Each structure stands twice: as C-alpha cells, then as structure tokens.
C-alpha cells in the first residue's frame, strides 16, 4: 500500500480548524466519513480466517482503513486475534469448579492447540469447551466433557445435554418450554395500538432491563421515540458473556420468534426500520434458531419494511457494555464510550439507538398481549414480571428457571434441586460483578433493590452455588482474573487496578496476606470504583469487598 492510501481523512475535509462554525470543540462530532469503511472491517477479517500476518494489509485495501488501525481493532477481539486455537476451554467459576483446569491440562498433553477463555455461556454443561471449525470464518461448535462430579472422565463430545428449563406454563412471560408463536399475535395487536400506546404499555409494566443494569425499558423507548425523525436503530444485546449466565442463549434457542417479535414491536413503536442482533459468535444453536426464525418471519410478512441484521461478536466480554458493543459494531476496538451522549440520543453511527437485552425484548410480546398491569402483578413486592434465573455450580439441576422477579435465592435453589456435594457455603447472585454472598444470606430477594442494599447486584441474574468444600478466596481470585483478562485496557483504574487486585489476592492465597495488603485492596478498590470509565472497572472490586466483608477473619493486629 503506497503512502497516502487508506489514510485518515482528517486533513482537508472541511472538518478541521476552520470548519466548525461556533463549536469550540469536537465533543459530539457527527460520525466521520471513515465510519462507513470500518463497518466491513471485522467481517473482512472473518473472511480471511482471522488476524494472520498480512491479513491487515488485505483488509486495509478492501476497507480503506489504515493497516495499523485495522490491526489494532482485530487484535482486540480474541476470536479474531488468535485464529490458530483449535479448542477453547472455559475457565469461568462454574467450569473451574467442574474441573476446567484438569481438562485444560489433559488437552495440552495430547498436543491440542488449546487456550483458556473466560466464559462460554455453557455453565450448566460445565466444563464447557468450544471447537474452532476448520476453515475459520467465525464458526464454532460448543463441546463438553463427560464428567463424574468434578473429575473429567471422558473425551469431548458434541452432543450437548438438553437444558433444564421451567416446565411449560402459559402463565409465564417468556415460557422457554412453550411453543413459539409464528403468527406474531402480539405484533398485530401492537400495530392496532399504535406507537404511543405501546410505549405506554411498556412503561406501565415497569419493565426493567434484563441485561444487568436494570434501567427502565419504558424510559429508553420513550426517549428514542422522541428522536423518531432521526432514523433510529434497534439493537439487541445478545452478547451474553457474564460468567454464570446462559439465559439469553436459551431464549434465542427456544423462542427466537419471541425475541424477533419483541424487537419488531419496538422498531415500529419508536419509528425504526433497522434491527441489529449482536450475537456471541460462540452461540451456534441460538444462531441457527434465529436464522430459521428470521426466514419464517420474513416469509410470513412479519418483517415487512424492516431490515434485520445478525451481527456476530468476536470474543470480548466488554462488548456486552452497550457503548462498547456499538463501537464493535462500528468496526472499532470495543472500548466503552463516555456518557453523555447516551445511545438513545447518539448511538450506532450517531443515530438514536434503542438497545435492550434479549430477555427484555422477549418480555415485550406478553406485555402487549396481556397488558402492563398483568405483568406488574407477576413480581414479588415492588418487582414486576418474571425473570429468567440461570443457575449453575454445585446444584442438582443446573438450568434456566423462570420465576417471579424477587424470589429468594433459597426458593430458586430449591427449584433447582438444592446444593450438591456438601452444605451451602456461598452463592453468587448475578454474574461475576455481583460477588459472593455467604450462605446465611440465602433469603435475600433476587431483585434489583434488595441485592443492591446487600452490597451486591442482580446483574444478569446468573446464579452460581458453592458448597462448603469450595474455597471462597480461590473463587474470588478466579473472578479477579476474569476482570483482568476482560478489561478493555482503556483506563488505568481498571487496566492496572484489576492486575494489582490479582497480585494482592494471590499473595493472600499464598500466605494469608498482611494488614497492609488488605489496606491496599481497599485503596485500589476505591480508585477503581471512583476512576473507571465504565461499569466493568467500577464493579470489579465487588467480589473483593465481599471477600473481606463476609469471609475473611479479621486480620491479626500486629
């Protein structure tokens, strides 16, 4: 590539110093012209089988993105950056408890190109692995090992066990075991109601986002509807990667029409014509189910006037954060943006963007058909609706259970058959960021408010159970390493803070740690919470705080 090709256009395109009118700064620039090129960048790497020597030059020629920039983006995403790995072994907490380290060692002894990875969303089939299909192109097959307790006894197999789900019950909001409705009755009703009434119904349902933050969906919908004239876009966050979480996987695999219908209702309510589903590339079965449902819905005319795109992730937990997801969709490094502006005003390509989680969209059809008041009546206390609770770890029937939002952990545990291998020691109520709570807190309601009051969070509601043979310090270290490995690296509080936390916890695991070490943990945690740009760094110290608060003996005063 000769010099001058593929260069940024920041010179001489009228956007420079003189061209800004009264604007002092470049805070909220309209997207630059080069964004159009970036959109093809990650798919182009996929087509070349990942980031191999020379691939960046080819991609640069195809897209006009400078070679180094293309390289920088591709190297961010593990599934692209490490194309020669045959098998990835999940080292999430549930998988580690089920013998992931053994499996990793076994695979290495037979000479497989094997890499540990952070979470594959198969916690109920732990220890989970993923095979990269020959030929690359971003095709992956989930595998799992035969095991007896925590010992891995057999070789990898591709026949995945059927998931444990709540029994078919028409009174459930999502009802994973139910039949998908290919007639899209709710979408028809929504069309009759009109946009204002649909948004009002979502608001009346007090539906809170099911992805982790619990933001009221009605607020987002109303905000984007106010921006209807600016070509809004609907994005479904299907990048489920929070360790312990595999509920969206089952929604897409079992009820793909429910998700599509919910998205279509949202699109028509806020005046959008483009739908994007950002799906983990690791999820093979959900992808097949979604593609099939899109074809059926298209044939039935349900998607008339709507463009649907299934975009694949490339192996980066941080892209579950909504602005990092948008960056990745735009073909950039998945580093979270500063807010404001919020995506509802300026998101994907600067357009108003309505982004909800898979489960959130899947709640929509039932709310439209049966009303917000009905939905409100389903929750416990102030909570509204039902919730999908994925549960794994030391539990008899790991699976996804749909229960009223706000059930206690003890109730969920009973539904899943109780603790196995010992008595209850601790549980993680909602993904890696929620930390670990001691067994005596089992009556806490699995709901946004009560868990926050307990110093934790509902998060993605991915519950992991630890029996009393487990080591909470080791589990905390596992999670600290997870955050270290999945930090985007943009800001120092998170990038360096996660590393220092791991160092301190390792010292503690080795010799119990000193008083000074505990003080250092506290200081680093404070700075991560105060100084990090996004929720990953802000929440990463929670498991450490829980460890100190609930599980460690008071340090010797010496």
């Amino acid at each position, binding site marked *: *590539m000769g*010099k001058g090709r593929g*260069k*940024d*256009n*920041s*010179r001489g395109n009228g956007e420079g*110093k*003189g061209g*800004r009118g*009264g*604007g*002092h*700064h*470049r*805070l909220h620039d309209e997207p630059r012209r080069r964004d159009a090129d970036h959109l093809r960048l990650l798919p182009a790497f996929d087509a070349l089988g990942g980031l191999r*020597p*020379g691939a*960046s030059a080819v991609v640069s020629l195809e897209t006009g993105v*400078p*070679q*180094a*920039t*293309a*390289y*920088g983006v591709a*190297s*961010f995403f593990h599934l692209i950056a490490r194309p020669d790995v045959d098998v990835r072994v999940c080292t999430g907490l549930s998988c580690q408890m089920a013998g992931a380290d053994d499996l990793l060692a076994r695979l290495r002894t037979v000479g497989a190109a094997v890499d540990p990875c952070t979470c594959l969303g198969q916690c109920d089939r732990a220890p989970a692995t993923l095979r990269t299909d020959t030929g690359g192109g971003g095709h992956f097959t989930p595998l799992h090992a035969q095991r007896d307790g925590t010992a891995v006894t057999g070789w990898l197999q591709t026949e995945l066990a059927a998931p444990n789900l709540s029994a078919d019950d028409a009174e459930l909001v999502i009802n994973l075991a139910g039949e998908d409705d290919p007639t899209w009755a709710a979408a028809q009703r929504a069309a009759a109601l009109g946009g204002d009434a649909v948004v009002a119904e979502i608001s009346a349902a007090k539906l809170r986002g099911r992805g982790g933050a619990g933001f009221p969906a009605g607020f987002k919908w109303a905000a984007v509807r106010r921006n209807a004239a600016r070509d809004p876009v609907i994005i479904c966050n299907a990048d489920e990667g929070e360790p312990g979480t595999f509920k969206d996987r089952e929604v897409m695999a079992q009820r793909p029409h429910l998700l599509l219908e919910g998205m279509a209702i949202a699109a028509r309510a806020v005046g959008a014509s483009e739908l994007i589903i950002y799906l983990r590339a690791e999820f093979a079965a959900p992808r097949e189910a979604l593609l099939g449902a899109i074809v059926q819905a298209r044939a039935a005319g349900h998607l008339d006037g709507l463009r649907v795109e299934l975009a694949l992730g490339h192996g980066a937990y941080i892209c579950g954060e909504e602005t990092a997801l948008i960056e990745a969709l735009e073909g950039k*490094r*998945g580093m979270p943006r*500063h807010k404001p502006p919020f995506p509802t005003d300026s998101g994907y390509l600067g357009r108003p963007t309505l982004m909800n989680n898979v489960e959130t969209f899947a709640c929509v059809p039932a709310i439209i058909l049966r009303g917000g008041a009905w939905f409100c009546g389903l929750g416990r206390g102030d909570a509204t609706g039902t919730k999908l609770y994925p549960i794994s770890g030391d539990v008899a029937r790991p699976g996804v259970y749909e229960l009223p939002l706000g059930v206690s952990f003890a109730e969920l545990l009973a539904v899943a058959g109780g603790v196995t291998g010992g008595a209850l020691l601790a549980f993680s109520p909602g993904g890696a960021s929620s930390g670990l709570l001691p067994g005596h807190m089992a009556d806490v309601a699995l709901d946004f408010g009560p868990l926050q009051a307990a110093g934790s969070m509902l998060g993605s509601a991915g519950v992991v159970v630890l029996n009393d043979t487990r080591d909470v310090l080791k589990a905390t270290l596992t999670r600290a390493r997870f955050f*270290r*490995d999945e*930090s*985007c*690296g*943009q*800001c*120092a*509080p998170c*990038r*360096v*803070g*996660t*590393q*220092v936390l791991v*160092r*301190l916890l390792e*010292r503690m695991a080795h010799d119990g740690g000193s008083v*000074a070490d505990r*003080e*250092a943990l506290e*200081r*680093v945690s*404070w*700075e991560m919470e*105060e*100084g*990090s*740009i996004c929720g990953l760094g802000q929440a990463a110290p929670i498991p450490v705080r829980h460890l100190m608060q609930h599980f460690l003996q008071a340090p010797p005063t010496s």
Partner: protein
Amino acid sequence: MADRKLGDPIARDPDHRNDDHRDDLTAQSVSIVIDGHQLHASPGETLLEAARRVGVVIPTLCHDDRLKPTGACRMCLVESSDNRRMVPACRHPVADGLEVVTDSARVQRHRRSLLSLYAADAPDGILPGTELDAHVLRYGLEPTLPQAEAPRAGRPDDDNRYILFQPDRCILCARCTRYCDEVEAVAAITLAQRGSQTTIATVDNVSLLDSTCELCGGCIDTCPTGALVERKAADRQEDFGDLEPVRTTCNYCGVGCQFDLQVDRAENKVVRVTSPAPGLTTNDGNLCVKGRFAYGFIGHPERLTEPLIRDKSGQLVATDWDTALQRAADLLTGVRDRHGKDSLGFISSSRCTNEENYLVQKLARAAFGTNNCHQCAAT
C-alpha cells in the same frame, strides 16, 4: 491573522484567539463556577478550557490540545454538580449553573490513587522530568502497591535508528497513536491487544521503517512519560532536563520551522532536537524527519569547516577564504572566456536562505551574464 503581531501565539481556533471576547457572547454563554471563580463560558467549551481561563490548573496526561479529547487517562477527573461521579474535565461540556470543584479531598485522593496505579505499572520507575513525574511531585502518591505485571509487548526487532518505544514506560494514553492519526494523518501506530496486554504497535509489529511511518517523531514530542524517545538520545534520557535549548530555524526547506537544539554545553554537543510547544511557531509543534533527526552533520568529523583547494598533485589542502574565492573566480572566468558565458550554469541549494539564493542568481546574471541558474527546490 493579519492583525497578529510578531511573537503572538498563533490562534488555532478563531474563537480562542482572544479570551476577552467570550464576555461579549453573553447571549450564548453559560455561567459556571470553578473553585469559587464565577465565569462565563461558551456552550461546547470543556471544563478544562474554562478552568484554564481563570488560572485553575487541572492535571492531564492523555490530553493534547491538537487531539480529540478521550478522557481515558482519568488524570483530569473533577467534581461537577451535574454528575454524582467525577467527570473528565478534558471532555465534559460546560452547562449553565454548573459548579465545579477541582481540589476537594475526593479529587485529591483520586489523583494520588491514580498516580499510585501508574507507578505500580512502571517497572522501571517514573522518568524524572516527564509530565507524569511532574504530577507525582505535585500531587503525591498513596502507599506503594505491588507491581502490576505490565506484560506490554514492544517491538524488539524494530531496528529503525530514529524512534524507540519502551513499553515499560508507557501508560497507554494513546497520545502518540492519535497524533499519528489525527495530526499527521499517517496512522502508522495503533493501540493493539487489550486489557493488561494493551500496547502500542505497528501493523503485524513490523519495523517503523516498513510501516507508513514518516519518522516525524511527533509521537516522541507528545509522549508524557518518555516511553517514546529518540533512539540516538535514549541513553541520555535521565538528563534531558539539564540540556540547554537553543531556538533556531530549520534550513532543510523553505517552511521555516522553528526548533530547539537541546545542547549539552559541557560536551558542546546537540543531544536531540525538539519542537516548540504547539501554537507558538509556524510549525505548530510539528517537525519532519529531517528537522528532528538529521542533525548529525553538526559535529560530524567529515564536515567541511574551512575552504579547501587542490594542490598540483590533486590533494585537497586547507586555505583561507580569499585564496579560495580568488581561485574559483579565476577558473570560472577562464571557462567563460574560452567557451562563452552560457557555458556556465549555477545551481543553488534549498538549504540556502532566500537571500543567498538571490545572490547566486545575481552572480550568474550580473557577474557572468548567463540566465543558466536554478535552485534545487524550484521544481
């Protein structure tokens, strides 16, 4: 620009030329309070820009006025009444009624804590004389933390003779990559990998010589930690602060860039060349590969420092200027007399000044009567 007086800073944005004129913009301006200073600011202005006008110092690391603010280094976090979290002053917009506090106990603790993390990520320590070091001296540190692993990859095989990247000194503020992209429009370097492995890389980690890099060295100038340094001067990095800057004009081409020769007086030697800060000179903080790196001739043993003429055996011998000029005049006049005036031609160097070039053409036309004159940069 017509009313600019010699020595005035060059305005980079018409709206920034004169701070006083902001007060004329009352119709569009907002009123904010920064550390007790009440001031008017223009919509779109950042807290950092507003604070500067009232003399409130907010420390920054990833900020460079020439670049789009990213807010990534977290050094400039301040308390602002529109957010319960601290906000990055470099990119947080002013808003009417905002109250900003830049020196609360919370902000001070944050600065010490953040700097402690940077220190924990610097296996070789923080280099004296850098922006990062200045912040540590001014704001202090919290108690020492265990060292992070900092597994950032460098480019050990990059054998270019000009720019050295030292990953252990890097804080990933990305000023270098953004300068390369946004100012130079070269994009030879990029943030690569992620998390603790994040580093500054070229495509496929090739040498800068095999990348689109034009070796302008602007990345060195903007680096706040000394992670980027002139390879020739790398072993002197600890004493850059002791060097004496000598401002001069580059004579490699006609642009007229100003730069500072950084001189070791004791050795009477130029150690490195730096650009004056942006906004002060024609080159606005930039230099090219010649200006920054092609100074080796100054003390080179083969440099001609006196006139030489050939003796009868063809050997060059030193002489005085009068003798040398007389010899040249005699021989040129001889050629003209034997072969005619258009048998001569005069070529001057682009490294000569305008005045010198003028004199060369005058010599050709007036003294020798030929129009055969040219200057190597004229085409």
